[in-house]
């Protein structure tokens, strides 16, 4: 009798994501599940870090994967499967963000500039990660999404601009604003410099607007 081990690996052994998409389009009933299995943690991280709320992230991912399942037959090999999936996931997240635009953004904590939650050198890696994660969550959504894609996920500015549907200059400037805030919250800026130099939100806005979109 032929066992599962002899049958199952055909899909699992598919050499590339594109093979799995093709197999799915050809009717392989578990090719898409295998694809989801491969990428779900990364997509989860993107959704969670973009939306902050686990329930919303789960809803967005479910929508995204169903959408991808249905659209897989139209996938074109010129784009990478991961980029294609990312685009669908990011779009699902952005839709949700737009729908909740009326909700207030959680402000940054009122710790003094350059005053980290705890001394950095006393923290374990895990504590540091939690602190960075928390700081990221507190960024405004318009800054958090490009920072998640560029700085956490490693996408290029150009790719991120396409994913988010904004100009490359806007991606750069939003990343710059977000990084400056994070540097302050994470304690990388000394008090003196931060006190002297970190302007309130809105300063340089005119200057900024002229450069955005370049």
């Amino acid at each position, binding site marked *: 009798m032929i066992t599962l081990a002899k049958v199952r690996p055909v899909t699992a052994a598919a050499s590339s994501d594109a093979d799995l998409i093709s197999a799915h389009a050809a009717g392989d*009933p578990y090719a898409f599940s295998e694809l989801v299995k491969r990428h779900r943690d990364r997509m*989860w991280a993107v959704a969670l870090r973009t939306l902050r709320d686990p329930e919303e992230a789960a809803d967005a991912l479910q929508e995204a994967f169903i959408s991808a399942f249905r659209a897989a037959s139209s996938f074109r090999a010129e784009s990478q499967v991961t980029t294609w999936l990312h685009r669908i996931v990011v779009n699902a997240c952005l839709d949700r963000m737009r729908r909740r635009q009326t909700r207030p953004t959680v402000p940054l904590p009122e710790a003094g500039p350059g005053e980290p939650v705890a001394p950095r050198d006393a923290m374990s890696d895990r504590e540091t990660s939690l602190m960075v994660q928390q700081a990221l969550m507190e960024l405004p959504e318009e800054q958090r999404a490009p920072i998640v894609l560029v700085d956490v996920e490693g996408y290029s500015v150009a790719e991120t601009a396409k994913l988010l549907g904004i100009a490359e200059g806007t991606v750069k400037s939003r990343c710059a604003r977000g990084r400056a805030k994070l*540097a302050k919250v994470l304690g990388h800026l000394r008090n003196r410099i931060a006190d002297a130099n970190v302007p309130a939100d809105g300063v340089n806005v005119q200057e900024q607007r002229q450069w955005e979109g*370049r």
Partner: protein
Amino acid sequence: MTGMERVPMGPPWSVDLIADLHAGVLPPEVAAQLRPRVEADPDAREVLQALDATLVDLRSLPSVPMPDHVAARIDAALAAEARPGIAPVVSLNDARKRRNRRLGMGGAGVLVAAAAAFGIVLAVSPGAQQPPANEAAPAPTTSSTSANAAPPLALSEAELGSAVGEVLKAQNYGPLETPDRLSGCLKGGGITSSGNPLGISPINLDGKNAVMAILPAGLGQFRLVVLDPATCGPDKPEGVLADTTIKR
């Protein structure tokens, strides 16, 4: 307008301006003039280092595993998406029975079954947005329609899984000829299955004639059975060459 006149070329510079320089926001000609000055200023250099350290923090964030309950929920949603009974297609079994009653089984039966199988393909294929199968529509001419005439899929044991997609498109009992024969062979292997196979097709397994059937096996599951038509039958378990449940 170059932006140059808006950028102070001497300290102190705002953190935001240095962050712009760091992120490549500034026009190249402005950045080229500003960068050496910023790097020569100890306070500004510290800001650049702070931004670099922030990037290191962000890039060092560990992956976030999807919680099991979320993974299970998404798996279930995808399985439901692929299930013929849930996809926006007619009840295929009912349609098949109605067609069989109207046209009768026998010579035309295979063609009718193949037409019904095409409906199944619509249900399990991605992008199943096609309209519901129409009983009045002519039987589509798919590869499964001519499956009887085509040589069976030649497979090795290791390739069985790769044939699932093709077999799902077919409703060709091959040497088993009838659903009753199939039922008898399944019974011999102790396999109970409600409903018709999702797909069935003769295959050539390592040079030997066989029949592969894909049976429904509950939510998000399929049962792949390979039968030897020469030996299978009620009380003949040796006729079952392969039997495995595949979870999505």
